[in-house]
Each structure stands twice: as C-alpha cells, then as structure tokens.
C-alpha cells in the first residue's frame, strides 16, 4: 500500500466521520474520538511499514509528489501530532463542549484528520500548486477549528482574526507564486531552482516574487512582522487547536519553507544572498518580537504563543545557515531536528494547560500557583516542558538551540547570534516565571488536582522523550541525517 493511498484513506475517514456526525447525532463523542484516533494510529502504523520511495507512488501523482526523507519525517510528524491533538481534544471535551453551539464536538474529530492529510501532502509537494492547495486545505480547516468554541467570545474573535489575516496572507502567497512563475516560467521547485541558477533569469522579478511569496509563507510560520495574529489566535482558540496550530501548522509551514528555500538558495542562485539576508533580518526580528513581549504576559497560553513566535525565529535563523563548507550541519536537518524536539515540549505544555482547563482552572500564571502541591507530577512534567522550551541543557530544547547557535557562529552572523542570545535570555525569564509560580507555596489551600491515567501516560511519555532526546539525540539524528537527496536539479 503506497503512502499516498494511506493519505487518501485518512482523508476519506475524515469525511466519513464528518458525515456520521452530521447524520447520526446521537453517536457519542467518545466513539467518534476513539475512531479518529484509531484511524490515525492505524495510518501511522501502515505508514511506517509502507514502501518509502517515490517509485511506490501511483503514477498520476508522481509529478507532484515525492517521498524523500524530509517528506517522510514530516508525514510521520503530522500523524503523531494529529493523534496527540485528537486525544487532547477528548481529554478536554467536558470543558470544550460548554462553548460549542450544540454541546457537540463532531468536527473537532474529523477536521484534524483532513488537516493531517493536508500537512502530509504539503510535505511531499514538488511544486507550488500542490503547496498552495494543501496549504489552503490546512488553513481553511483551521478557520473552522479556531472558531469552534463559538460561544466563547475569545474563540470567535480568534476565528475572525485568523480568517481575515489568513485570507490576506493567502492573497499575498498567490500573488507571490504568480510572480515567481513569471520570473522562472515554472511552478515546480526543481524548475525554479534550475531557472534561478541561470544568470539569464530576471533578478528583480525573481526577487520580487520570492519576497512576496516568503511574506505569505512567513505568515504561516509566524515570522515577524507577520506574526501579530499568533498571540491572539493562539490564546482564543480551544487549547487542542492551539497545540495543533503551534506544532502542526508551523511544522507544515516550515517544510514548505525548506523546500522553497532549497530552490531559492540553490547553488549559484542569483537571489541566494538576498534571500539569506532576508532570513537573517526576519529571523532576528522574530526572535526578539517573540521573546520581548512574552516577558510581560500573564496568561500562560498567550505566553506560549509568543514563545512559539520566538521558536519560529530560531528556525528561520537555522534556515539562513545553509550548508557551510566546514561543518556538515545542513539547515534542513537542523530545522527538522528542532521541530522534532519542539513537538514534545509544546504539546506537553499545551497538554498541561488543557488538563488545568479541564479541571476548571484558568490559564493565567497565577492559576499555576501552588501546582506543585496540588499535583506534583503535573508540576514536574510542566517544569520539564518549560525547561526544554527555555532551552536548558539536558533537555531536547537545548540541542536545537545549540545547533542554531553553532550554525550562526560558524557563518559569522554575529548580529543575528546576539539577537538569538538576547531572546534566549528573555526566554529564561518568562519560562522561569511560570515554573516559579508552580512551586510557590503561598495561598495553596486549594484542593488537589487529579487527572486520568492515559493523560499521565501520554504526558509522562512526552516528558521522557524530552529528556531522552536531550541526552541521547543520536537515534533522532540517524533518522534525520541519512543522506537526503538534495532537491536541486543541476
């Protein structure tokens, strides 16, 4: 069974669930949720054992799809995050249903499957058309998901903002695609790379197109100055959706960005150095604009949103460091590594938030006060998550940052490195603020918190993953670094 078939099957499952939910209103959300999880898990298993080369794809799709390591990695990534999000939704359901119109969560279980498929296709995309279509599949589904808790003013507001700004970015993206096409005469990444390596191609047209296109993609990955939507939307959206957005959507954005940059910054590209400059400027700006305002946040959810902006900045900076002659640290693998480590820590953070919410607590830092007393395990797990987000050594988060720093220093991008360091320092501050709150003992006459065994298991597994990756990253690197055929056609 080819990977494409699995994806198609997953999409069908999503549609089927949608229909079932619509026509069989008395079906319990538990059944729906478990079906979705089981389906995705099955897809994951099948995906692992499916043939992993482009030749296995059906012929009609082969011009637009590819199965390189990057694609495979992100596909797996998408499946995992989808399972986690579905499960988180189920865990938060009692609380979420208070804000939905009919007290149901039907689409919350079907749309993530569709999003997942969109992300998986994005990972394989070989040309801009596929990118656009799968990206929009994801985005449009997210419009629904973000605004899902319609009775909550926050969710609705987040939905509206995401809708308008998302649509605006779509417009920019398409316009950029148009100009890239105009400059290179092709939509496929290989063709673009070839054309850009050709000195005869009009440089300013290509630059204009690339710039506009990158603006559009920048919006998806929350790069400054296109990041304003992130805090508002993340804060307003239901927590599982926020987790999905911050991990899944961002990862998808980055895989596209990686592919686009592979083409734009191909060996001998006429616009390579400008794009690199763009990445450095935007990356530095992003880490700062993500970190500095975060220091003043009182809501943990919003804080995580800012933190996710700042992480996007590090990733952009990593992308700016293309392969250097001296050290074989390709930016693509660094980004993949960073995202792989980013997954457990972010999901764990949002999981904690969701569990707090499910227990009727708020999302403010002050609601975290005394958590260590109320539920030591949760506090410990959250500590691990935040420590990793802050980039403390012996957690997975440190390695990712270290690679970014190494890359920047290797290329001699001192300005960007300083920005990254300032942002990391600010990061210490706001993550520690939260950690500190959890262990504060004042005013902790509140009752103990309990959460379900599966929640414990999942959270524990994530925390363990963070710690293990932090001290023994070799397996992950082995997965990522087995020689990926460069997406360049000479």
């Amino acid at each position, binding site marked *: 069974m080819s990977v494409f078939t699995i994806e198609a099957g997953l999409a069908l499952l999503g549609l089927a669930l949608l229909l079932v939910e619509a026509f069989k209103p008395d079906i319990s959300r538990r059944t729906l949720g478990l079906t979705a999880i089981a389906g995705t898990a099955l897809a994951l298993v099948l995906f692992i054992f499916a043939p992993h080369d482009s030749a296995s794809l059906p012929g009609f799709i082969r011009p637009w799809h590819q199965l390189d390591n990057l694609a495979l990695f992100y596909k797996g990534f998408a499946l995992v995050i989808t399972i986690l999000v579905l499960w988180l939704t189920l865990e938060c359901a009692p609380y979420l249903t208070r804000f939905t119109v009919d007290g149901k969560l039907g689409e919350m279980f079907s749309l993530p499957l569709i999003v997942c498929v969109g992300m998986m296709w994005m990972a394989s995309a070989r040309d801009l058309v596929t990118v656009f279509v799968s990206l929009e599949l994801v985005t449009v589904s997210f419009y629904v998901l973000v605004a899902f808790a319609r009775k909550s003013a926050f969710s609705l507001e987040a939905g509206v903002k995401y809708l308008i700004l998302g649509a605006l970015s779509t417009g920019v993206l398409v316009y950029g695609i148009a100009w890239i096409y105009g400059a290179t005469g092709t939509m496929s990444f290989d063709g673009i790379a070839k054309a850009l390596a050709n000195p005869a191609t009009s440089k300013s047209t290509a630059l204009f197109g690339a710039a506009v296109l990158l603006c559009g993609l920048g919006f998806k990955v929350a790069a400054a100055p296109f990041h304003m939507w992130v805090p508002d939307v993340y804060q307003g959206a239901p927590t599982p959706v926020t987790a999905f957005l911050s991990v899944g959507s961002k990862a998808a954005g980055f895989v596209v960005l990686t592919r686009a940059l592979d083409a734009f910054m191909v060996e001998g590209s006429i616009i390579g150095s400008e794009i690199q400059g763009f990445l450095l400027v935007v990356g530095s700006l992003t880490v700062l604009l993500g970190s500095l305002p975060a220091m003043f946040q009182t809501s943990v959810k919003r804080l995580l949103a800012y933190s996710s902006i700042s992480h996007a900045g590090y990733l952009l900076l990593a992308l700016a460091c293309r392969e250097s002659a*001296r*050290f*074989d*640290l390709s930016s693509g693998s660094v980004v993949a590594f960073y995202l792989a480590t980013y997954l457990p820590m972010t999901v764990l953070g949002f999981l904690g938030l969701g569990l707090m919410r499910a227990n009727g607590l708020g999302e403010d830092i002050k609601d975290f006060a005394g958590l260590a007393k109320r539920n030591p395990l949760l506090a*410990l797990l959250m500590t691990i998550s935040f*420590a990793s987000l802050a980039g*403390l*050594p*012996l957690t997975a988060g*440190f*390695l990712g940052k*270290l*690679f970014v*720093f*190494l890359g920047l*220093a*290797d290329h001699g991008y001192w300005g960007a*490195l300083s920005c990254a*360091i300032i942002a*990391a*320092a600010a990061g*210490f*501050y706001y993550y*520690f603020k939260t*950690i*500190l709150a959890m*262990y*504060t*003992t*004042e005013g902790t006459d509140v009752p103990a918190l309990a959460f379900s065994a599966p929640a414990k298991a999942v959270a524990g597994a994530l925390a363990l993953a963070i710690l293990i990756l932090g*001290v*023994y*990253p*070799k397996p992950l*690197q082995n997965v990522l*670094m087995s020689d990926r055929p460069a997406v360049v056609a000479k």
Partner: protein
Amino acid sequence: MSVLELIIALPLLAALAVGLGAPARAASLGASFINLILVLATTVQYWGKTGLAFTYSRPILENPSLSFAVGADGISLILALLTTLVMLAAIWQIEDRPPIFYVSSLLIGGGALGAFLTTDLFFIYAFHELALIPTFLMIALHGRAEPAQRKAVAWKATIYLGAGSLVLLAGLVWLVLEFSGGSKLTFDLEALRSQAQLNPLPAAKQAQIFFVLLLGFGSLVSLFPFHSWAAPAYATAPTPVAMLHSGVLKKFGLYGLIRIALPLLPQGAHVEWVQNALLLMLLGNILVMGLVTIHASRLDDTLANSSVMHMGYIFLGIAAGTDLALKGAVILMFAHGISIALLFGLCGRMRNQLGTLEYNKLGGLASHAPAFTVLFAFGTFASIGLPGLTNFAGEVLIFLGNFTEFKAGTLTSLQWTVILALWGVVMSAVYMLRAYRSIFHGSPATGLFMIDPAFSQRVPFILLATTLLVTGCCPWLLLNLMKSAL
C-alpha cells in the same frame, strides 16, 4: 563504565528516589556518604598519577560529535572531593525541612560533580545548568526573606547567571568552531586541546575568545562588576543552597577557566588588554568588595560579600597563569569552598536559633556555645588566610606564582596588583574579626539564647573544619594530585 559515572549518577538517582517518595534524609545522607567514599577511593587510586584518568566515553551524537565522556585529573578530583564533602555537610545539617531541600541539595551536588568530572564541553555546560536551576528555585521559594524580596533576589541571580551562561555558551561555541578539526564539530575537550596544540590561534584572536569566556565564566563566579547577584542571593538562600552554591557551584566558572580557557588559549590571558581588564576586574573584587564587606552590618551580608571578594584572589592566580599560581588557585578554590560552606552552615544555624544576624544585636555567644564558637573560628581564620588552614596555602602560592618572573627594580602590572591585593588580606581580617568580635566576644546580649548543637549536628561542621586543618597543615596532599604542570 567508569567509576566516575557512578559518582555522577548517584546523587541524581538519589534525588529522583527522594522525589518519588523515598525517605528523604536517609536516602540523601546515604548517597552522599557513599559518594564521598567513592571519591576518596578514586583519589587514592589516582595518587601519584598524572594526566586524565578513569576515562570513558559514550557517543550520543555523531554530528556535531557529542559524547558523554568522563575523566578526571587532579583538579577535577580535588573539586569532586570538595563537592562531596560540602554536599554531605550540607545535607547533614538540614533539620526538619521538606524533602525539596534534600532533592535540591542532591541536584546541585550531582550537577557540580557532573560538571567537574565530564570532559565534553556539552556536558560540562549542561551539568552546571542543571545545578543552577534548583538554586534559583530554592532561593525564590524557601529564601530567608519576604516572598516579594526573595523572588526579586532570585530573579536577579537568574538574570545574571542566565545571561552569563549564554555568553559562556557563545564563547564555548566559538571555541568549538575554531578548534574542531576535520569536517565535524566536536565538543570533546581532549580533541579540542590537541587541535589547539597543533594549530594555535593567533594571539589577538585568542584574546578575543578568552575575553568572551572570561565574561561568561566570570559572571558565574561573581567577577566584578558582574557580582551584584551574589551577595543578596547567598544572604537569602536557604542554608544548604548557600553552602553548596557558594562553596561548590561557584567554583565551576574558575574550573572552566583553568580547564578550558587556559589550555586552549594559552596566550589569550596574557595579551595586554585582556590581562589589564582582568586585573582591573579582580581588583574590583578584592578592594571594592572588601570595602563593601567592611560596611556590612549583618553576618550573612558579610559572608556573602566576602565570598565575592575572595574570588578575586583565585582570578589573580588565573591571571598570572604560572604553574605555581594555578595550583594555588585550585587549592584556594578547594579551601574557599570548604570554609565558606562551613561559615554559611553555621550562619544558618545561628539564624534559626537567634532569629537575627545583626551585629549590634548579637554578642557574647562564646559563653553560651563554645563548640559552635570554635567551629566558627575555624571558618573565620580560614577566610582570613591563617597558615595551618588551607586558604593560606592557596593564597601564598598564588602570590608567589605572580612573582616567579621578576626583575629586580621593575614591577609588572601583575605584581602591582598582587601588592594591592595583599591589602585585601588586611581588609578580610578587619571584617571577619569585627564579625567574630561582635558575635562571640563581649558580654552576652540580653534576650539571646543559643546553645551548642548536639554532637550529631556538629558532625558536618567538624568534617569541614577537620578538612581545613588537615589540608591546611599538609597542602602537599592536594599538590601531589596535581603533579604535572598546569
């Protein structure tokens, strides 16, 4: 598998066990006691050897090449000994406290051991950070001040040490980039060192990197002017944390300079602008902080500031960079660690019993608590630099080390600094004796009641005091561990 791995793992595992509900005191004491025995046995085994021993390496990443590599030479063993001694004492002196006190002490100790006994830059750095976190948390959560104030203090320390660590990280990254041979980045200290010997950098560049490292390591050691976190943090920190951080963890920065910066950048410290900057900063430590300490009116302030001040002498040893001075610096690190831990431990007891540390409210305690007084006197005179206690040996070697290259009639800036720094020895006598006099001498102040701790509670302090005496009378015990030239 190397015994060093066991030494590193034991406290961390014990911390985990206590966290999961094992009996806190028994587990922590047991682990730290076994650890002390292990380190002592390792030291005995190392006796007479030179170079790195007990090495073992487990690769964890191929590119950049990272591995969990352990190894110890004389310096690391001396510091490991310091760590285990102070850890045992710090844990032992905890009384009626929640398990988090034990956990944090074990984590700080384990982190410090990890930093001292691994030979991969990545883990050296990482273990140090691991030890820092409980420090902050404990200051913020269980500090001896109003919640708002102790949080402010903890934040200050966090910002300083966090920023310092990041600067340090930048410096280490720079080192790694400069000295990684071949196409792979490596964090292995030995590999970097051999590369540094093969292809030394030009002196100007060495100076730049050294300076970055100096700032990074320096702010961890409260090098002037990056010191203002230290005094409030130590004064506020719960006793075991103050003991462990000021006694052990702070030595990490110095250890790093001696172990990492100096061997890789042998000329870096001696380029004129770097050296002058370092000398100015360390004079700031000694003279400015000496005066600030004299001004202090509470025991915890005095101890905290004095601990900042004494770092200046160790930096002086590093600035000189001669064999004699560096060995002196290592001995002084050991000595200062033991003595300040002793003093902070006793200070904590006093605060518990008396509720105040203001000099003008204290007096005449020697009549009430003679044994306590004797123990405190050990700490006092050690930090004054009295011969027969370890600090003296370290200080005198540092001073001598600065004079090994000397031409009659001309003093270098280094040597002028030594002369100024010697005045600091006078100052430290002034404030320590003032403190001693106002606490223990005179007629007992009214309303103060303090009795000697029971013998079992005296043990940790006796352990530290005995160490000071033994290594003070026989500093060659420590010097024999550092036979090869540094």
